[in-house]
């Protein structure tokens, strides 16, 4: 790969993409897109990513959008970096992709209803928040059951899928979902937070914030 740049926002799901970049040991630049100021809709950013979303990975001037697509790209380019466990057959590989789709298309929109209900309504956000909670709770219960017998999503070893689902449940917690009843998720959370690539991604986010002189105080 040539010159690489990640467009992101500290704390957004681009934190997962950044963790993947760190895991692969990629040399990359990064730039914050101020979603709270609508910067994703600016003509400058739309020229980079017409979908107006983050994360977006630009490689040699060409843009790739969607978190799970970027993660899959990195896994194809760096198959030995450990983003996913080794597979025994094509169906197992397809299942790993299926899990990314589930997290992107099921977890994330549900968490969004919970954490940012105004994104789903022009009316009373509390009714959307309540629905988001109902959508997220069975996902949390299913994840907690899965983690009862193994430390990570796929078993003994960390995968980027763990960090992606972690981002979703911790974001749901910010949306006032009580995740404390899920003891296996609590243990998973500590393991995911201790993962070195995740720690490096957090440090990189802090550096990015310092570079712009701190995050703006926007309500």
């Amino acid at each position: 790969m040539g010159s690489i740049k990640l467009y992101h926002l500290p704390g957004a799901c681009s934190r997962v993409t950044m963790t993947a970049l760190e895991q692969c040991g990629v040399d990359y630049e990064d730039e914050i897109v101020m979603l709270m100021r609508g910067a994703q809709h600016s003509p400058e950013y739309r020229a980079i990513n017409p979908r107006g979303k983050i994360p977006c990975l630009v490689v040699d001037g060409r843009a790739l959008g969607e978190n799970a697509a970027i993660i899959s790209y990195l896994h194809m380019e760096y198959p030995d970096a450990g983003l996913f466990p080794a597979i025994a057959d094509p169906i197992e590989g397809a299942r790993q992709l299926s899990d990314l789709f589930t997290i992107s298309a099921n977890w994330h929109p549900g968490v969004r209803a919970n954490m940012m209900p105004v994104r789903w309504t022009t009316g009373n956000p509390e009714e959307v928040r309540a629905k988001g909670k109902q959508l997220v709770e069975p996902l949390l219960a299913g994840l907690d059951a899965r983690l009862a017998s193994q430390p990570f999503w796929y078993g003994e070893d960390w995968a980027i899928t763990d960090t992606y689902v972690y981002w979703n449940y911790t974001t749901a917690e910010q949306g006032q979902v009580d995740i404390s009843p899920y003891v296996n998720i609590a243990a998973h959370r500590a393991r995911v937070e201790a993962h070195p690539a995740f720690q490096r991604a957090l440090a990189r986010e802090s550096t990015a914030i310092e570079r712009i002189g701190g995050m703006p105080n926007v309500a």
Partner: protein
Amino acid sequence: MSHDLKLFHGYTACSRVTLTALETLGVPYDEQIILFEKGEHKSPDYLRLNPAGKVPCLMIDGQPLTENGAILRFLHAEYPDAGLFPQANDNWDRAQQLSVLLWISAGWHPYVRAVKMPMMWTTGDIEPVREKGKELFSGVLDQLDAELADRKWWFGDEWSIVDTYFWWAYINSEFGGFDLSPWKNIARHRSDNEALPQLQRALAREQAAYDARKAEMA
């Protein structure tokens, strides 16, 4: 490679896109329609295969695979000459093909849900959710319409399964009372899709499966 394939699908659901993919392959497959109005998606037998209780679910040599986008990529990998996606030259091309599937699955589909079934996003008043859904959906329609201004299909001159996935999303918004007429390139893309033999075969197969189950229960 040859596989034993069976698709669990739903009437008018996004599994219609998966059916179209199977029809494109031209290989034999089995299918079974899941009647949501009868709660069959929550039956213990189905939940054992797919704990999320959703369609599509493709049984591959007896093993379940869920999520439309993952199924479409699997079928493309196993039947690369069927033309579900254009030829990829490198990992970047492969990632771009995946990116558009994710955009539809995680972006378009939830917006369509807000327009067509707003009760899925709220415990209260549905109209403000539908209104927001229309605003969000208009935004992605604008983007697709602009992309289709200078080419017939998403990837260029050749159809890919991505085109039928878009088609499924926008015609579903119409079932939710959304007016698609302002988007001229999408109107053309729609009729091009509806003229596809593989789509017509998929719709006929879906209808036959539905009618047969309804007759059985009558």
